[in-house]
Each structure stands twice: as C-alpha cells, then as structure tokens.
C-alpha cells in the first residue's frame, strides 16, 4: 500500500514550460494550449495526464449546479504522526496551502446532463490521493447523501492507497467506505466507480473496485500492490501492460474503458439504465 510515495516524487515535466507541454509518456512536445484543450490527453499517444478535482468536476457536472458537501472536513491526525524530518501536521498544513484543498477528495451533488447525481472526486495532489480519515468520512457521507436522496453515486478514484501517516485509522477507512457502498447496493441505488491513473492499494481494495459498473480511463494503472513490490516478491519482471486498464478489462475487473472526453456522456448513458422506476 506504499506505492504512491514513489509516484508522488515524480516531477511532472509538464509544468515547467508555459508554451510547451512534454508528454510524460511519449515525451512528445505539445503546444500547451492544444494539450489543455484536449483535457490533458496527449494528442500523440493518448496518455491521460492526471487532472485536478476542480477540472474533473468541470468535465462532469453541469455548470452552476454543483453544491459541495462537507467542505469543512479536513485532515485529522489521530496518531500525532511524525517521521524523521517532519510531522504529519506540518506536512498537512503545507499541502493544504499548496493545493487549496482540505482533503484528498471533493464531494457534493449536482446534475449530469440534467440527471441529479452525487459525486466524489479524488485529487492525487493531496498526499497522493491517499485514504485518510477525512477522505473516508467524506466518501461515506456523500454515499449517505446518495442513499437518502436515492440519487446515483459516482466516485472518481486516483490514489496511491492508504495514508501511512494515519496508520490503522487509514486502513479502517476501507471498511467504512465499503460499508456505505453496501447500503447503496441493498437499496438499489446505483454506484458507478471511475478509476483513473493511478488507483492502488487501500483505494482499489475498497470502494473503487466494487462499482456496479467499473469504468477506467485508457492506460490508467490500477492494482493492489505496486509493481516494484511484486517484482521483489516474485523475482521476475512483469509484462509491460501489467496493471493497466486494458489488462484489468481483459482479466474481468473493468466494465469499460472510456476516454476522458467521453466519460460524461458515457455516465449519462449508463445512468439511463440504472434509474429504478
């Protein structure tokens, strides 16, 4: 579940230049404007760069209809955790200042092409999208809102897994969020999971993987354990496409792979089938 720290440190070459963006996958130089217009999908190789929760919200929810839930929930520090260099509390303050976010997920409700939905969007910038207790609280509270209003629940995941700095409390968020999904299942309230790059560990092994429908963006990396951990365990190199969306679809865990620009209309289509009369 410790996979994200490695990724977190990867410096995106995309932010350096104002005019040009460099694709993290194929290293092509692309006009930043063109790239942004293409929703940060590389026009050369189709690589889906991560986007912020605000960008995702804009791509998904009809303009002017979104109302945020539980925006006041922020990081809690149940263990008073410190490592060698710094305390979790300090790092949290830093991250909050840098990202303007209180937690690794944005939740709320609004309409999607006119359909009322409840939505949770994870943001990888915030502690690698890791599952803190605030994250778990917000995801559960949003599912509870969906349950009470009988509105479909959509979760976009992007996460390195559990949040080590919250120790066992982070682990417990897996059980907690899944308990919320369990209630939706029982009540017949639709739950759609959208897995984006990357979704690992404690998030893939909880709510992200048990959607009525699991959707993934092309090429997203999705798995339980990180590639390095597995290679160390089995002392073998893994196939190139290991843990990609395409690999998971082939192995039966993803219902559909959908390009970023088509996700909204795909969700709209799928919701047509899920609205219990």
């Amino acid at each position, binding site marked *: *579940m*410790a996979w994200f*720290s490695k990724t977190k440190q990867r410096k995106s070459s995309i932010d350096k230049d104002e005019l040009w963006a460099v694709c993290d996958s194929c290293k092509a130089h692309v006009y930043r404007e063109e790239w942004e217009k293409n929703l940060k999908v590389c026009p050369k190789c189709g690589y889906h760069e991560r986007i912020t929760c605000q960008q995702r919200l804009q791509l998904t929810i009809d303009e002017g209809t979104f109302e945020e839930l*539980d925006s006041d*929930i*922020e990081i*809690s520090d*149940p*263990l008073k*955790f*410190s*490592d*060698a260099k710094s305390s979790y509390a300090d790092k949290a303050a830093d991250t909050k200042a840098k990202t303007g976010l209180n937690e690794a997920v944005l939740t709320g409700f609004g309409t999607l092409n006119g359909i009322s939905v409840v939505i949770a969007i994870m943001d990888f910038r915030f502690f690698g999208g890791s599952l*803190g*207790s*605030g994250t778990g*609280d917000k995801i*559960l*509270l949003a599912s*509870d809102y969906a*349950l*009470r209003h009988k509105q479909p629940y959509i979760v976009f995941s992007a996460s390195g897994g*559990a949040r*080590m*700095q919250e*120790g*066992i*409390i*982070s*682990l*417990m*968020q*897996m*059980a*907690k969020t*899944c*308990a919320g999904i*369990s*209630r939706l*299942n*029982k009540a017949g309230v639709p739950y759609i999971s959208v897995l984006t790059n990357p979704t690992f*560990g*404690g998030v*893939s*092994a*909880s*709510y*992200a*993987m*048990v959607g009525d429908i699991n959707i993934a963006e092309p090429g997203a990396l*999705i*798995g*339980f*354990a990180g590639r390095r951990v*597995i290679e160390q*365990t089995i002392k073998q190199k893994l196939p190139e496409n*290991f843990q990609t969306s395409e690999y998971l679809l082939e*192995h*039966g*865990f993803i219902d559909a792979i959908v390009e970023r620009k088509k996700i909204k209309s795909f969700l709209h289509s799928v919701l047509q089938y899920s609205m219990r009369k």
Partner: protein
Amino acid sequence: MSLDFEDQIVELENRIEELIKLNAAPDVQFDTEIAELKKKVQQLIKETYGNLSPWQVVHVARHQDRPHFEDYIEGMSSEFIELHGDRCYGDDRAMICGFATIDGQKVMLIGMSKGRTTNEKIANNFGMANPEGYRKALRLMRLAERYNIPIVCLIDTPAAYPGKEAEERGQAEAIARNLTEMASIETPIIVVITGEGGSGGALGIAVGDIVMMLSFAIYSVIPPEGCAAILWRDSEKAPDAAKALKITAKELLELGVIDEIINEPPGGAHRNKETTILAVKEAILRHLKTLEHVGRKKLVNKRFEKFVKLGKFDDRKYSSH
C-alpha cells in the same frame, strides 16, 4: 528462533533446565538454586514483557512458536470440518475455513494459516492469501449467515499476497468485495488478531462486530520496515516507524479500533500456547453469548456504526437504517 531482547531470559531458562536434569542424579541437590533462578527468570520476564517497545512487540507477534491457526482449531474446538474451495478457481491453503464446535457452540471458523514446516510454509504461501482465499471465506460466511451460525475469524498474516497472479485474479476486488459484503452479513462476526494483522490482507476478513487482539499481536496498515523505507528512507528505522504507526494492542484499544485485549501469559503466547488458546476461547464464547441475543438488523446497523465512527471527523449524523 529467539528474540535478542530475550537473550538473558533464555539463558536463565536453559540453566534451569540443566539444573533440573542434574538434580535427578542421586548425590546432588540444586533445589534452592532452581527455585531462586525460577523466581529470577519470572521477574525478568515480567520486566521485559512489561516494557516491550513496539518494535519488540512486532518480533513477538511474528514469533514462529506462537500458536498457529491449527493450534487454535485443536485447542478450542471439539470438532472441525474443513470446507474447501471458492467454487470458482481454487482452494487457498493460506485461508482455512470450516464448521467448528467450541464448547458446544457451532460456528464458522475462518483463519489464516502460516504453516510450521518449510513444506507447509510454501504450501500455505507463508499465510499470505490469494484472491481465492478471500472468496472462499466470503462464500462460507454467506453460508453461515444462511445457516444462522456465527462467524469467528482468527487473523495472522503478513499481508495479502503481492504476486503477479494475485493481481491477475483480482486481489483488490476480492478484498473490496469482502469488506462490502461483510458489512451486510446478518450473523455475528467475531474477529481475533492472534499474531500479525497485516493491512488489507488482514482486514479482508476482519469486519466484525467484536474485534479483539492478543496483547502482543500487531495490526498495521503497513509493515514498519516498509513505512521506514518510505518515510525515513531507511528500513533500519523500522523501530521508529513501529512506534509512530501505533500498532500495538494497547494503542489500538485507545484509538477505538479494537474492542478488547486478550492477555497473553507472562513471556508471550510462544511460552504458553495452551493458556493463550484458552484465553482466546473464553473471550470468543463470552462475546458469542452476548451477540446471539442481538436482532439481526440491529447487529448489522451496529457493525456499520462501529466502523463509521473510526476516524469520524465530528458528530454529524449518518442516517440510521
């Protein structure tokens, strides 16, 4: 295997044994020495085990002489009928399930099995379950629900297996499915962490109405070595990580993650398996007695509330159901 902080204890224990042997000879008398040494070793054990650091607890929790699931089966139950297979892909030897009778009480008993001999360890994948293990457990939990018997899960695993084929067959899905389904199972679920409670691999069968821990067991989101390697950039800092992560029974009770600590005998479970197993048995039976009177819907609601409150930011109300 002996633990370094136990060196002195083990040395004394060996001396006592030697003296006892010598004492059997006709013309020697070491009774006084033996009695004195015994007192001394007990004092030492008490001191040492009363002040274990979290990192030392990790070693006790992993001690290979701790009682294994097989020992609990034998020590707690008058009957055990193993039930195999996930009805889909395989029969995972790291996850053992079956009907068991504990003091007349019928239960579905589920546990991780690390194996003792080298062959067993390999067959059982060192207690690291594959997806089919979690799926077997879920199948049999659902059967227990239908048959209206309680479920008891004993946990002792380093982790869910991080292998290529485990990923291919959906390790993440299998654990996630268990967490989701266990939240709605309408029969009591009692969980005891008896050794290592390794992250998602442990949690996959640990969504219970009552979660207990042996006093020198651990329960953690990541092995201290792994945490140290990442956050300290030095896996030698595992003792620091172990401390920071709060993985011991006492800390977890304070955090509200577990409901009860089952005390191990002086010197740890590996010094007295029988006493440990009886203590676990007593705790299970005691809670079974209470839970059997709780209505099924109420049981599921209380389980929900139990997990929901962990890390709950404040007191805003979730809808009761």
